[in-house]
């Protein structure tokens, strides 16, 4: 291959790209935490709620986990303005990602909610705990611990999936990489640098999630 690698132009743009990485992380955080909150409600409703609610949540989950996230965001991106809702591309992408991750997290969290031993729920009831107190003191800590590993993995998937936002003009890491490569025409160099940044982000995220799990939830996952 007669190609002369030249990283100088890309490295000059490193601060700009890293700024984009921060945006990627922000998207992932919002999608994760808002999705987890909705997902927790979804999982509780799916397991302990009345029949019609269980069905409705089931339909929601089926729809959002069986269509591509990209298609969902596209739909929102073009449908919302038609419905008179004008939002920035970032907000639109965030809404799409939250709706999508809420569906996946409902399923992930449901596995945890189901695995709470009935014995503990009964003990909690006889100790006079209210429903909210049972969720807070018994269900939530148990669920977090049981499904900590899939939750961590899902966070990583969201970080990587946030690159989709570039298609809608959001200047996160991939979006900025496209900007950089179209001006310096060093596509290979730009995207290899961006790949390394993604690897670093996910590595640091996995490591901190594993340490957090060990410290807060007694999860003894293997880190390496």
């Amino acid at each position, binding site marked *: 291959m007669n190609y002369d690698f030249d990283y100088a132009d890309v490295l000059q743009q490193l601060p700009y790209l890293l700024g984009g990485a921060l945006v990627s992380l922000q998207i992932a955080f919002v999608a994760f935490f808002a999705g987890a909150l909705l997902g927790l409600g979804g999982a509780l409703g799916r397991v302990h709620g009345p029949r019609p609610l269980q069905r409705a949540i089931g339909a929601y989950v089926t729809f959002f986990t069986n269509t591509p996230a990209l298609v969902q965001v596209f739909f929102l991106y073009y449908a919302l303005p038609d419905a008179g809702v004008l939002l920035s591309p970032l907000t639109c992408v965030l809404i799409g990602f939250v709706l999508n991750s809420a569906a996946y997290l409902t399923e992930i969290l449901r596995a945890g909610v189901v695995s709470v031993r009935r014995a503990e729920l009964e*003990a*909690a*009831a006889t*100790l006079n705990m209210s429903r909210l107190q049972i969720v807070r*003191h018994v269900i939530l*800590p*148990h669920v977090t611990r049981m499904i900590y590993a899939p939750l961590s993995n899902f966070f990583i998937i969201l970080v990587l999936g946030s690159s989709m936002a570039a298609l809608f003009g959001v200047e996160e890491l991939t979006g900025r990489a496209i900007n950089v490569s179209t001006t310096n025409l060093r596509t290979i160099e730009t995207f290899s640098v961006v790949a390394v940044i993604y690897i670093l982000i996910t590595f640091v995220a996995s490591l901190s999630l594993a340490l957090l799990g060990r410290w807060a939830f*007694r999860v003894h996952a293997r880190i390496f």
Partner: protein
Amino acid sequence: MPQLDIRDLHAHYGREPVLQGVSLSAERGEVVGLIGPSGSGKSTLLRALVGLTQPSAGEVLVDDRRIDYRDRASQRWLRERLAIVFQQYNLFQNMTVLRNVTIAPLEIQKRSKAEVEALATTLLDKVGMGHKRDAYPDELSGGQQQRVAIARALALRPEILLLDEVTSALDPERVNEVLDTIRALTREGITMLIVSHEMAFVREVSTRVVMMDHGRVVETGPPAQIFDTPREDRTRQFVSRILRH
């Protein structure tokens, strides 16, 4: 006036009747032993008393007050006076031993932290688990977990304590440590209903023994009557089969 008065209590699992008119009362400080074959309704009776199984008919009176199991406030009132220890210990796996014991008094009864922690320490020492206060349930043996469960129930300062086959899930070697703990409690004047298959133990600690079969009370009497001179054939048959071993 009995402290606990159960009148003609019925309960069903689906269509299956499990309690078919149980009447039973306990005076303050009494230790009532419940015996009978598996499926006779002993455990269901305790579950119905705390409201985990809805009674379908009959009534329960505590301190002369009728309990409405469909009403949350009434159930709360009941559960402030009545604690249960289950066969499978039922400790919260995500909490330390100390937290298991203190969570209800602190978060639900809103008692002061200093008082609750002092009481928890005393209770854990009493059941011989003081040295494990920072351990998690999965680090303990079954017998140790059960002793913690007893401490957790006592921390609520219940007036009535229900023990549902608390030793039957334990290794034979661990049974005695739990029985010793209960034996010590019976001397403290707390009203107890004990479901157990440990006949020698029931005979020793009970002030009164109730024999149940098919969701009904077959016979009630002092331990000597039930175990030595039962009046009902069914009791004689059950006791002789059990004691032969």
